[in-house]
């Protein structure tokens, strides 16, 4: 509750600050300080200190899971601001408005992670989506940005329509929007099943699971790279938390009906994401497909739906956000997004290359990084269901495929000669990257540092 209201207030504040303050560095400082404030407020909320006492019963429920995820999300946005907010200046002239849109998106993420009513789920998804359409099209003169924005908008609105139809049908079957009262009977009617499938489709669309992934590479490729970093990480895992909550609380009793559907979607997502990423020529597009592939792994949590799955999803979201934000922040500094542009980066910028290698190893799931522990938890959760062992084997095989395209970047940096020309890299940027890499290794050795927060 603390973070939700403060984030809305800060969003409005940033909007007005563009009128009052003309300096860009001032706007950036306010945004970073605001995010720090949100992080502190959210951690206080976890400790039981509430700034606001508002009765949200039946609409929202701020449990441990949601609050811990919100902390991860706010911390990731803080790191993202520190690393990349300077590069937002190049996108367009509306600098502090971009920050305010990101604060509003954070509101949406908090709504989606802590909803108790389908109304809040719908509002949260829309509060996430509408600012994202704007951020995608932020480069007004760039045709690729325009195209990505229009495509995202049309397909996003279409999937919202499907979601609304699903909600309406479920309402017809149960006469309530409250997620915990939705399934009362073991034998659901046709309205309930159709509504659930429509919700499954629209949620898989939002998290870009196959076969609803087709918008992802185009939109991620066309959007300004700074904002791709944001939408491919924090937004995506935020919607995943909503996904797992919806299917846990509302449709938990119908698990036999939907589990095989989710298993098939997971397998398709892993396959398409990993295989297509192998053939990409641009690192940005490769990261877009890699985000589909990582979504496939996170879908294993929705498929398994047990206590390990929830822990694993928290760890996975931290691992994925930290590593991908780091990679994108380096990618933004490059003038050219092909693999060849990274040739010889290790000689010119050894610290950046080393940290980038750690991020890529974490995404590939190599031991001693948090990516390995995250994948381990996911596979453990999937094995604990005791069914569909082929899915686990397939996921391991696909993780092996993913090593290929992540290592292509490492190979280009360390074993090829070339003249990379990244833009100005400041020492503070380098040290933030080192801290980020240290965090990834630390969590990879002691994942309980994060997971203990879930219980205490």
């Amino acid at each position, binding site marked *: 509750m603390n973070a939700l209201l403060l984030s809305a207030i800060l969003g409005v504040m940033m909007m007005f600050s563009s009128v009052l303050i003309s300096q860009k560095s001032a706007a950036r400082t306010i945004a970073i300080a605001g995010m720090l404030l949100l992080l502190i407020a959210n951690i206080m909320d976890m400790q039981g200190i509430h700034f606001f006492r508002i009765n949200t019963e039946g609409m929202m429920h701020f449990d441990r899971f949601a609050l811990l995820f919100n902390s991860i999300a706010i911390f990731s946005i803080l790191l993202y601001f520190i690393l990349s907010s300077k590069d937002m200046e190049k996108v367009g002239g509306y600098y502090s408005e971009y920050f305010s849109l990101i604060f509003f998106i954070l509101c949406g993420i908090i709504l989606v992670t802590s909803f108790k009513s389908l109304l809040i789920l719908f509002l949260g998804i829309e509060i996430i989506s*509408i600012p994202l359409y704007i951020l995608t099209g932020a480069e007004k003169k760039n045709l690729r940005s325009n195209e990505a924005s229009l495509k995202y908008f049309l397909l996003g609105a279409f999937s919202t329509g499907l979601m609304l139809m699903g909600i309406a049908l479920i309402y017809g079957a149960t006469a309530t929007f409250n997620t915990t009262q939705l399934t009362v009977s073991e034998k659901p009617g046709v309205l309930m099943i159709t509504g659930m499938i429509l919700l499954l489709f629209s949620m898989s669309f939002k998290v870009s699971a196959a076969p609803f992934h087709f918008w992802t590479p185009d939109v991620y490729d066309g959007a300004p790279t700074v904002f791709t970093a944001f939408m491919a990480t924090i937004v995506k895992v935020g919607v995943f938390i909503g996904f797992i909550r919806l299917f846990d609380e509302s449709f938990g009793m119908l698990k036999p009906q939907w589990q095989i559907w989710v298993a098939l979607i997971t397998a398709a997502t892993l396959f398409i994401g990993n295989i297509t990423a192998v053939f990409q020529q641009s690192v940005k597009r490769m990261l877009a497909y890699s985000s589909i592939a990582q979504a496939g792994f996170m879908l294993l949590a929705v498929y398994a739906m047990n206590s390990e799955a929830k822990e694993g999803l928290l760890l996975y979201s931290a691992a994925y956000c930290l590593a991908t934000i780091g990679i994108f922040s380096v990618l933004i500094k490059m003038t050219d997004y092909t693999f060849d542009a990274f040739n010889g980066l290790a000689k010119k910028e050894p610290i950046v290359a080393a940290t980038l290698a750690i991020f890529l190893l974490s995404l590939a799931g190599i031991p001693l990084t948090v990516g390995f522990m995250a994948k381990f938890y996911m596979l453990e959760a999937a094995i604990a269901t005791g069914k569909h062992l082929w899915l686990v084997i397939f996921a391991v095989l696909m993780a092996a495929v993913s090593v290929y395209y992540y290592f292509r970047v490492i190979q280009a940096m360390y074993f090829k000669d070339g003249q990379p020309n990244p833009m100005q890299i400041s020492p503070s940027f380098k040290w933030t990257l080192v801290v980020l890499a240290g965090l990834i290794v630390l969590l990879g050795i002691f994942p309980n540092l994060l997971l203990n927060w879930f219980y205490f």
Partner: protein
Amino acid sequence: MPVNYYIFLSIALFCIGIVGVLTRRNAIIIFMCIELMFNAVNLLLVAFSKMHHKAAIDAGSVATNVGSDGQIFVFFIMVVAAAEVSVGLAIIVMMYRNVHSVDVNFLNRLKH
């Protein structure tokens, strides 16, 4: 009037919307079809709301606000749809300024 008629009408409107989105090439018309889908959902929610209300009354319930949440949901959909229209039309105008067309067949530059 039985609720079935409303359900069939709104499912028909929804399907017209989906077919329109999938077959038309003009961004504005696709957008109108999406709005048609939203409004089909609104109609369905109101119909269900009345159905649950009547069922509660027939069952002897004294609580007469059963089903009102469905109608409240409709207001939220209207507000969100309006917000989406304002952003969406701005995006379409931005596209039109650059390529002087709102045909979505233009949207193929990102494929490669």
